[in-house]
C-alpha cells in the first residue's frame, strides 16, 4: 500500500524520528570527514564543530606520503580478497551439501556450525594464536588469512543454506534429467543462482576483514611490513596524544575501497529475509 502521509503531524513525527536515528548513525562518519580536514590545533580547541575553519587537503597528502600507504593498502587488498574467495568457496560447497543432500548426522553438523558463531571473539583469539605459533604461522600471510576465513564461514554457511533451501528441488531434478552430475548442478545451477548471496557474503566479509585490526596487530606483531591498512594508519594514534586529523584522513581513505565495493555489489545483494511464516 505505501501509505501516503496525508497528515502533516504524522509526517513530521516520522521525519523527526528518522533524522534522529540518522544523525546518531552517521555522526562518526561526519566527524571523521570533518576532522580529517582540520589542523591539529583546531581539533584541540573545538572537537565538536563539524565545519572546519578551512579545508586542508594536506592531511591526506601527508598520510599517503608518510605512512607506507601504498604498501599497507596492497596488503589489505591481498588479505581481503583471498579471505572472501576462501569463504565463498567453502561456505557455498558446505551449504549445498547441507541443503540438498541427506546423510546421517546432517542436522547435528549444521547446528555445530551455527553454534560456532556463538563463541566470544576474545575467546577465539587466544587459542588461535597458540595454534598459529605451533604451526609456525605467526608473522606470515597465511597465518592471518586462515583465521580470517574461519571467522567468516559459519555466518556465510547460514546465509547460503537459507538461500539454497529456497531453490525448488524441481530445478535440480530438471538439471539431472538434462544430464548434470551433482558437481555440475553445483557449478552451473546453484552458484550462478546464488549471485545475491555471493554479493552479500562478499560485502559483509570484505567489510569485516578490511576493517579488522586486532587480530592483524597480534599476528603480524613483528612484521610491520605485512600490516594491513587499518593497523598501519594507527601510527598516528599515540599513547597520550593522538594526531586526529592525520588518523581521520587515513581512515577516510581506508573507507573508500569498501564503499566502492558496496556500491558495485549492492544491487546484487539480497533484498529481503523471509521466515516462511507470513503467508497465512
Amino acid at each position, binding site marked *: 500500500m505505501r501509505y501516503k502521509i496525508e497528515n502533516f503531524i504524522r509526517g513530521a513525527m516520522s521525519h523527526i524520528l528518522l533524522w534522529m536515528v540518522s544523525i546518531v548513525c552517521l555522526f562518526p562518519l561526519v566527524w571523521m570527514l570533518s576532522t580529517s580536514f582540520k589542523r591539529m590545533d583546531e581539533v584541540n580547541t573545538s572537537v565538536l564543530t563539524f565545519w572546519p575553519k578551512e579545508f586542508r587537503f594536506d592531511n591526506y597528502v601527508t598520510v599517503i606520503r608518510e605512512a607506507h600507504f601504498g604498501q599497507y593498502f596492497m596488503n589489505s587488498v591481498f588479505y581481503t580478497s583471498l579471505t572472501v574467495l576462501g569463504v565463498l568457496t567453502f561456505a557455498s560447497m558446505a551449504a549445498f551439501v547441507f541443503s540438498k543432500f541427506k546423510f546421517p548426522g546432517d542436522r547435528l553438523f549444521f547446528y555445530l556450525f551455527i553454534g560456532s558463531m556463538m563463541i566470544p571473539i576474545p575467546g577465539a583469539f587466544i587459542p588461535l594464536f597458540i595454534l598459529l605459533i605451533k604451526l609456525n604461522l605467526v608473522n606470515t600471510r597465511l597465518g592471518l588469512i586462515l583465521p580470517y576465513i574461519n571467522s567468516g564461514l559459519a555466518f556465510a554457511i547460514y546465509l547460503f543454506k537459507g538461500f539454497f533451501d529456497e531453490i*525448488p528441488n524441481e530445478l535440480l*531434478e530438471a538439471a539431472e*534429467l538434462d544430464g*548434470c552430475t551433482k558437481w555440475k548442478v553445483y557449478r552451473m545451477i546453484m552458484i*550462478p543462482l546464488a*549471485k545475491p548471496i555471493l554479493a552479500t557474503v562478499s560485502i559483509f566479509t570484505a567489510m569485516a576483514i578490511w576493517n579488522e585490526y586486532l587480530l592483524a596487530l597480534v599476528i603480524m606483531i613483528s612484521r610491520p611490513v605485512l600490516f594491513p591498512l587499518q593497523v598501519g594508519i594507527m601510527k598516528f594514534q599515540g599513547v597520550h596524544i593522538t594526531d586526529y586529523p592525520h588518523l581521520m584522513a587515513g581512515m577516510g581513505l581506508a573507507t573508500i575501497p569498501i564503499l566502492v565495493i558496496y556500491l558495485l555489489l549492492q544491487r546484487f545483494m539480497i533484498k529481503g529475509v523471509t521466515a516462511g511464516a507470513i503467508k497465512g
Partner: protein
Amino acid sequence: MAEVILKNVSKIYPGGYCAVQDISMEIRDKEFMILVGPSGCGKSTTLRMIAGLESISSGDLLIDGKRVNDVPAMDRDIAMVFQNYALYPHMTIFDNMAFSLHMRKYPKAEIKKRVEEAAEILGLTAVLDRKPKSLSGGQRQRVAVGRAIVRKPKVFLFDEPLSNLDAALRVQMRAELSNLHHRLQTTMIYVTHDQVEAMTMGDRIAVLHKARIQQIDRPMALYDRPASQFVAGFIGSPAMNFFRGRIKEVNNEMFLESDGFSLKLLPQTRDSLARGGQNVTDVMLGIRPEDVYDKLFIPAAEDRNVLPATVDLVEPMGAEIFLRLRCGAYSITARMRKDVTVTVGQDMDLVLDMKRIHLFEADSGRALLS
C-alpha cells in the same frame, strides 16, 4: 518405438507409507496416456519413478522392452515438464533449451538448429534472448516443453504442466499440447488432477485412487461406463449425482427404494443386474446431471418415478443452466436448457432418464451394470 510397461510397481517410503501399490500398465508407442486422480493418489510418484527421480521399491519398469529400474535418470532418454516449469532463471531461453544438448556435448551447429526448430514450433523465436522471468506463464510453459522436445527423447513426461496457468490459457495450452502430440508422434505420459484435461487430451486415461489404479480406458468409455463409484464421481463436471438405495423385487418388477422416493428399474437394467450384481441389495444409484429432467418436459413419465425437489441455486452458464436442487436428504445437480425459467426456492418435479442410470455396490463401489 517406445513402449513403457509397469509390472506390479510399488513405492514404499522408509517410514512405511505406501505411495503406489502394485500398479501395472502398458503405455503403447505414440500413445498419449493420462494419469489422473485426486492429490495424494500416487500419480506423481508413478511419473517420478518412470523418470528415475524416485527409486522403485518393487516391480519392474520397462522402456522399449528393457528393464530400467536401475538406470539413472539422465540415461533413460526421457524428458520431463514440471509443474512449476523449473526453468533455469539465470539462463536465456536459448540456453535453457540448449542446456541438455550442451551437457551431452552435441556440436554447436546441431544445438542451434534443434533449438531454433523447437522455438519455431512453439512460437518462441522472438524471445530466445530473454530470461525466463520476463516471460508470461504461458510462454514459460512453452519453454519447458521446448526444453523437452529439443532432446527428441523416447518418452515425454508431464507433471501437471498447466496447473499454474489461468483458465483461458489452460484451454489454449491444452489444444497446443494435443497438436504437439499429433505432430511429434511420441509416447507421452501426462499427470493431472483435472478431469477436464484428462478427458480432452488423453488417448487413454488411468484413474488412480488411494495408490491403486481404478480403471484404464478411453475418455468417453470412462464417462459412459465407469468401473466404480469413485471413477463415476471423479470424471465429469458437474459431478454425477448419487442416491443410496435398496433393490426390491415386487410382482416380478424391480424397484430401487431410497429416502422418500422409489424408482422402477427398466427390464434391461434388471437383466444386466442379474448378470453383474446378483444378491446385491444395498446399492448406490448414479445419474449424471444431463440425465435429470424437469417433469414438465417429459409428460410420459410414470408418477412413481418422480422426485419432488426444491431449487437451491440457479447457475446460468450461458448455453445452459445448472440447477442445484434439494430432494429430501440429497442434493441433486441438474443440467438444463438455457430457456428454463426457474427461481430459487421454487418446487420442481424431477424425472431421471432410467436408461442412463448407473448402479454401484454400496460397500465396494463396484459397478453392477455392464
